[in-house]
């Protein structure tokens, strides 16, 4: 099981290779990518910060739970930290499974759960300021800045 928090660029080929299995008929890959806008604001770049050792531990626990719950063959979860430009990949998840339904279900659950539980934070940097984004948008909140600082 490939689990990693790293400042290096995330490579899809590495995640795909890590979940390869002769019994897998489906691989689902999810990339969280830095978008040029959020809540109507233009984003310049993002800075991700993690509690790396705990983040890897929680990511591994979530991956094990996904494997057991969805009957997956293998999982890989990688999160990048540091400064990320528009278009760069912050989160990379790969899942292999016998059939595609569990690959899609497992992939979605994994991404949702990672965004709720893994100790990683992002700061948005705009032309005229920056803010830490606190709380996943999946918890029913808009993903709004915790505070503005010009």
């Amino acid at each position, binding site marked *: 099981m490939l689990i990693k928090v790293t400042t290096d660029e995330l490579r899809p080929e590495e995640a795909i290779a890590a979940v390869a299995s002769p019994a897998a008929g489906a691989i689902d890959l999810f990339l969280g990518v830095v978008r040029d806008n959020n809540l109507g604001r233009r984003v310049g770049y993002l800075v991700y910060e993690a509690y790396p*050792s705990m983040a890897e531990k929680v990511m591994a626990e979530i991956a094990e739970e996904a494997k057991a719950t969805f009957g997956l063959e293998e999982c890989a979860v990688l*999160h990048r930290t540091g400064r990320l430009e528009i278009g760069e990949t912050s989160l990379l998840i790969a899942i292999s499974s016998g059939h595609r339904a569990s690959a899609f279900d497992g992939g979605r659950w994994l991404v949702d759960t990672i965004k709720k539980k893994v*100790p*990683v*934070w992002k700061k948005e940097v705009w032309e005229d300021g920056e803010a830490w984004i606190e709380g996943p948008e999946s918890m029913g909140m808009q993903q709004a800045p915790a505070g503005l600082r010009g």
Partner: protein
Amino acid sequence: MAYNRPVTVTVLLFASIAEAAGARRIEIASAPGETVADVRERLLTERPALRRFIPTLMYALNEEYVRDDAVVPDGATLALIPPVSGG
């Protein structure tokens, strides 16, 4: 015999609260048997400006999420976890 010897706790701060504190790691001396909430109050006594972050914090003791009534063992690492926003 060591009952009253102070307990050392390493408090880790991240993201917004780390920036506000100007620190990512603070050593705190507490007393044996104290909980996460007790250690948090010791921190706020030293740094009252951090109080506004408390309502949304979660806590991890030695990399496990805990409630604030968990007892803090000697030498523990207590992480103050703002609402996460990875992904």
